[in-house]
């Protein structure tokens, strides 16, 4: 097994303020990794760094051999314009971007794939509905259908089960496990520790830095969780420039 993702002393943040601080580590190809941690721990920031929406302030994120088309991202409560007049079918169809590009026709095969993806998330019959008419759970199912259609080797899900009911989250979890079984690498930011313990073999406990990373059982210990809870959320404009960073640069 080789690593698809390599974090080398990576620091990510906004306006020079770090949100993820000096993270080192690797994600193996085919891993099913849960990223847990309190609000503000830097989970979303880390994901935005991985999918290329955010440049690291320092260090590097290596995505060995992965191109843009190999990465699918499900953002948190996606920045969707729900009032935009587009049907569920067309919206999910945008997941075929890497197939069709700017001009390519979405042929019969493509249309079949869109229908299959909608069936897989339990949304068949919703093809012609405007996206603005979907409920929160249906919206999440639709976004999962698009991720499925992207057929990516690395799938990054930011809090995929937030604000969805038990039935929806168990349906969507089944889909996540299928992607894992197909050999894809899946990262998911989660808050439900019980769900993580049962379904995710590997966990990164994040609190700006990595508190622990490895086998889920070994990571989610009471001590580690307490340590993560005491994470410092300081955001100090007068803070000095990072010493560790300067030392790393000098070395």
């Amino acid at each position, binding site marked *: 097994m080789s690593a698809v993702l390599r974090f080398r002393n990576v620091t990510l943040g906004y306006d020079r303020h770090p949100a993820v601080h000096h993270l080192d580590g690797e994600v193996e190809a085919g891993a099913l990794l849960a990223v847990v941690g309190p609000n503000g721990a830097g989970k979303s920031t880390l994901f935005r760094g991985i*999918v*290329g*929406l955010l440049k690291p302030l320092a260090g590097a994120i290596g995505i060995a051999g992965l191109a*843009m*088309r190999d*990465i*699918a*991202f499900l*953002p948190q409560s*996606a*920045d*969707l*314009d729900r009032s*935009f*007049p*587009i*049907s569920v079918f067309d*919206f999910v169809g*945008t997941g075929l*971007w*890497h197939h*069709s590009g*700017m*001009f390519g026709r979405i042929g019969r095969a493509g249309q079949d794939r869109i229908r299959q993806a909608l069936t897989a998330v339990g949304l068949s019959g919703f093809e012609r509905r*405007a*996206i603005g008419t979907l409920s929160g759970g249906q919206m999440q199912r639709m976004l999962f259908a*698009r991720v499925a259609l*992207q057929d990516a080797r690395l799938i990054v899900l930011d809090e995929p089960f937030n604000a969805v009911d038990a039935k929806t989250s168990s349906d969507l979890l089944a889909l996540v496990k299928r992607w894992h079984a197909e050999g894809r690498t899946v990262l998911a930011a989660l808050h439900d520790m019980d769900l993580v313990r049962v379904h995710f073999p590997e966990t990164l406990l994040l609190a700006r830095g990595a508190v622990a990373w490895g086998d889920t059982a070994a990571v989610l210990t009471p001590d580690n969780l307490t340590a993560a809870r005491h994470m410092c959320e300081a955001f100090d404009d007068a803070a000095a420039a990072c010493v560790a960073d300067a030392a790393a640069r000098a070395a």
Partner: protein
Amino acid sequence: MIYDVLVGPFLEFEFMRRAWIGVLALALSGAPIGVFLMLRRMSLVGDAMAHAILPGAAIGFLISGLNLFAMTFGGLIAGFVVAALSGLVARNTELKEDASLATFYLVSLALGVTIVSMRGTNIDLLHVLFGNILALDNRTLMVIAFNATITLLVLAIIYRPLVIECVDPVFLRTVSRAGAPTHLAFMALVVINLVNGFHALGTLLAVGLMILPAGIARFWSRDITGMIAIAVFAAALSGYAGLVLSFHAGMPSGPAIILVAALLYIASVLFGSAGGLLRQWFPGRHLEA
């Protein structure tokens, strides 16, 4: 009788035929742009841009007269300068984008009116502010048609990323780098169409034939494709009816076109099948599922 009223003027007068062709070209290219402006919540940005491009178009106009190429080029430059400057101020200071755009377009408008009135005549100023669709010559008509063709071609090229950028900009950024160029190309199309509308409707009303049809279309369709088709139809209909109205009632043609569009708009707000007021007041009995 009806034939005389509705078709007669166009058979009889060449300037009416030119005006009709011109307004048709404006409808074909301007209305789709208007739909996207509306969906991106940029309706008033379009209006601000119409004023912002005035000095550029005015300088082009003064250098080479009523040459649409010079005016388009000048307008493009002025439009991008204003967009870039207001973006710069918004990003680097506490001022929000809309406030800084408002500042710059007002400065730009003042500058434009000053340039035209110092160097040109009052007729020129009236022409730039209110346009005169009844005075389109062959060359101007060709340029309007050319700009419309370019608009439709570019729109066809950027259509997919443009739609995705409207619905889900984050997704577009994760799958492609087409986002920024698409946005720029779209803004260029906005400017081109505003300059195009100058001649027919003037800088004050140029955006009208883009935004009103879009507003109309919103009340008749819930699908972007249908919306664009309806907007084009509404714009063409307003143009035609406005010309007929201005011919028989002796009204200025630009305002007549916009007023007809406004009537269609009111009718759509009331009777529109997609969210019109009547539908809301008398929705009928609710369904089983």
